[in-house]
């Protein structure tokens, strides 16, 4: 199937303005007749639901948490980028665009990225107007910090809780609209399926997580804003509930899944301490502004207390390898540097899986008080988890899965190949290519929700008759039956192994074979093992309790079942992409110095996978990527 990304014509800097001009408008009276189903209430979902309701559409919004305010966006710490150039350090829309395309290792769609950079400035204005308490300087102006992958200070932040503050802003806008009657909110409600009618997405099936009731909701368009799939690795920095269910089931209804192998590993996480571990904790990479990453030069030193290792015996790996970016090198590069050092036998801490992040010099230079002001909450968090104080000894850090660049394929209007199905935020694939720069996911979620979809959705709706499909349609009945049967199946299985034990095994497998570094042999092995594990899951999982009440094990079972299927596509995509780029590192494809080696001739495309009914044999559709503004180049941070 040919993929039309509907990128507007004209010069890069004018595309979005032109598209806004050319986009259809819907008569205010008619807007009220359209019902839009928004799944997800993170930055993307809340901002979209609120704004669409302000415009007059009828909105239903769903999330699985008990309150929309708890969506996973809440956990973002570091900040949000915007090309405000308040620091007068040479930033501009073009530079943010350039950095993002380069940071994505030339695997993002230029036009989308440019739009993102353009609206970034509006986001900050919007958030400030909502009362988001960004950090400020004494004069009352907004403060900025710098973040990995950029040489300008363009990151806005709210202490270590930028995500929470932005989400609370979007949530307040959502609340305003709920109070005004424009949005109906369904918390503790999980989406189980997309319903298509004549090839258009016209509704969803949900399960009420309190009563267990499985219900159908019809609408004129569906927006999936359901976040990333990082939990396929079991251990990640994502919240426990993050899942691939919504996007995966949409995929099985025909939506293309693009670039699943682009997964991001975050360098500054707290290392694993034991096999009971349920998640990994990220500490903002802003820590790298003042912390220095090192490991002992000599393997014999790894057991020594860090304080007893003299300067001369320390290897400051990032400063050595990337002198111009130093400790601020992008995430994929920093993560791999840490992995290399550990593979080299110079890792510290339990299992030798950790590197030091040292603040001793910064504390000496600025004083412990200043450092506490900057990172106090992170240091406290570190101490709570590890029982060690970063004021007294260097932190131990290790990379962990953090973000997923891949997602459902969308065009410039954020619509998937399934008409009516729109995908926003981390759930789509479009803006970050093979690697996301710090502080740009929040930017994307809000850009999509506040500024893009409210304009572009009309291009779909204008061709639709509002309310043409109701939940009485036979397709809904069919989908209801499928979902009910699946739930019953889990409960009836009565096997021996818990859902978590399967998830753990799957996660470890995917992390080993398709984590920070991948190769053909490992991926092939994983592709053999995943279907076996999936089969075992089907026959040997145990889910206690009943389907018609609150039952967390049942919720997990549904999510893990989908991860089991999705993992295969993840590995297939990784195997197909015979190059290294951004977060996807194939050990077969590297320069002699260990840097990722892209293959622009053969792989300068987005891989959009189509479900065929056979999980092992999806069809590959390619969206070729062209680079008009930022010329393809080897991404170097040296």
């Amino acid at each position, binding site marked *: 199937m040919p993929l039309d990304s509907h990128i507007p014509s004209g010069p890069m800097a004018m595309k979005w303005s032109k598209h806004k001009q050319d986009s259809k408008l819907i008569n205010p009276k008619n807007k009220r007749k359209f019902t839009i189903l928004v799944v997800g209430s993170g930055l993307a979902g809340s901002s979209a639901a609120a704004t669409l309701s302000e415009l007059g559409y009828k909105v239903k919004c769903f999330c699985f948490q008990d309150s929309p305010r708890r969506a996973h966006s809440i956990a973002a710490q570091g900040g949000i980028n915007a090309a405000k150039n308040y620091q007068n350090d040479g930033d501009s829309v073009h530079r943010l665009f350039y950095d993002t395309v380069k940071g994505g290792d030339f695997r993002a769609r230029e036009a989308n990225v440019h739009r993102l950079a353009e609206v970034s400035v509006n986001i900050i204005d919007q958030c400030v107007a*909502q009362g988001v308490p960004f950090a400020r300087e004494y004069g009352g102006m907004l403060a900025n910090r710098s973040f990995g992958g950029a040489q300008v200070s363009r990151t806005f932040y*709210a202490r270590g*809780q930028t995500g929470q503050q932005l989400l609370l802003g979007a949530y307040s806008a959502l609340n305003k609209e709920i109070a005004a009657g424009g949005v109906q909110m369904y918390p503790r409600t999980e989406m189980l399926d997309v319903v298509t009618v004549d090839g258009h997405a016209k509704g969803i099936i949900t399960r009420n997580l309190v009563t267990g009731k499985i219900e159908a909701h019809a609408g004129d368009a569906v927006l999936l804003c359901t976040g990333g799939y990082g939990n396929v690795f079991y251990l990640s920095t994502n919240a426990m509930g993050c899942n691939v269910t919504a996007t995966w089931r949409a995929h099985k209804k025909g939506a293309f899944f693009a670039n699943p192998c682009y997964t991001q590993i975050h360098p500054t996480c707290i290392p694993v301490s*034991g096999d009971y*571990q349920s998640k990994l904790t990220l500490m903002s990479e802003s820590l790298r502004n003042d912390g220095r990453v090192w490991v002992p030069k000599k393997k014999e030193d790894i057991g020594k207390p860090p304080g007893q290792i003299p300067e001369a015996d320390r290897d400051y790996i990032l400063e050595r390898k990337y002198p111009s970016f130093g400790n601020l090198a992008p995430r994929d590069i920093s993560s791999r540097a840490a992995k290399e050092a550990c593979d080299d036998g110079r890792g510290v801490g339990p299992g030798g899986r950790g590197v030091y992040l040292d603040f001793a010099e910064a504390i000496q230079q600025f004083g412990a008080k200043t450092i506490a002001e900057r990172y106090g909450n992170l240091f406290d968090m570190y101490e709570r988890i590890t029982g060690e104080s970063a004021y007294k000894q260097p932190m131990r850090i290790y990379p962990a899965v953090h973000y997923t660049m891949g997602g459902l394929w969308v065009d410039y209007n954020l619509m998937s190949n399934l008409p009516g199905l729109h995908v926003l935020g981390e759930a789509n694939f479009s803006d970050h290519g093979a690697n996301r720069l710090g502080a740009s996911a929040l930017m994307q979620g809000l850009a999509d929700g506040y500024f893009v979809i409210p304009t572009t959705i009309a291009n779909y709706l204008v061709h639709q008759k509002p309310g043409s499909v109701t939940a009485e349609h036979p397709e809904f009945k069919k989908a209801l039956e499928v979902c009910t049967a699946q739930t019953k199946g889990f409960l009836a299985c009565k096997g021996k192994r818990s859902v978590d034990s399967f998830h753990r095994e799957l996660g470890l497998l995917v992390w080993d074979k398709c984590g920070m570094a991948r190769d053909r042999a490992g991926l092939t092995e994983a592709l053999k093992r995943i279907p076996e594990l999936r089969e075992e899951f089907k026959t040997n999982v145990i889910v206690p309790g009943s389907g018609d009440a609150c039952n967390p094990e049942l919720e997990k079972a549904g999510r893990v079942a989908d991860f089991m299927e999705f993992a295969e596509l993840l590995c297939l995509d990784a195997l197909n992409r015979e190059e290294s780029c951004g977060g996807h590192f194939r050990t077969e494809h590297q320069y002699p110095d260990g840097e990722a080696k892209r293959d622009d001739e053969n792989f300068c495309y987005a891989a959009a996978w189509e479900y065929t009914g056979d999980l092992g044999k999806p069809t590959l559709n390619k969206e070729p990527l062209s680079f008009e503004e930022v010329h393809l180049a080897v991404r170097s941070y040296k």
Partner: protein
Amino acid sequence: MSQLNLHLKVWRQNAGQPGHFQDIEAPDIPDHASFLEMMDIVNERLIAKGQDPVAFDHDCREGICGMCSMQINGVPHGPEKATTTCQLHMRKFRTGDTIWIEPFRAKAFPVIKDLVVDRSAFDRIQRAGGFITVRTGSPQDANALPIGKEVADAAMDAAACIGCGACVAACKNASAMLFVSAKAGQLNTLPQGKPEKDRRTLGMVRQMDKEGFGNCTNQYECEAACPKEISVRWITKLNRDYAVAIVKEALGNSPKVAGGGD
């Protein structure tokens, strides 16, 4: 790393039915595990024995989403100061300890199952005024309105509230004043929030009362239990803002209270 042997007394309840404490033995718990990981281990063992695992709310497991909510040994989120349940680690307990684990209890927080409670009352309070009425569009440039660092920092202090409900759980009256005051206070402090200050204050306080929370008796148990160390000074401010708003409502040109709420 050492292992702990613990005796748990866990509240078990199905919605609408009376509940009871179940005694559960929890041997061999690694002291590096978090409290929720301890619960995971316990649940795995219950499942293996064919029993119903303990339902509890959680999501981020890093102390920011506000989803986790357990009364541990009589204190919300357990004994560590400024720490959520998910951030509490087992090294804070001793082998042989008996640990009481209960849901956050309040009439306004009905139990859904075991340790899972319904905190949607907080959302309804927020809807009654916890926002600034501004449309998505093109507000003025963010730096066109300078806000002093002190004011911005104060607003941020209040904004740090994660809406967990520990303040309600700790209070002998199940009062929601700390939560409500933090939410109203953040916006009432900022210049952007000033135009709707009275309307917001009245709307939120009235919704809070309607939800069946108790009244503040100034004992500050909320502040002691709050994982984000929200200060009771926000309650002082809410009392003050409310008094001003009500006098203006009674004697001035009365504002209409923000609509909706339920």
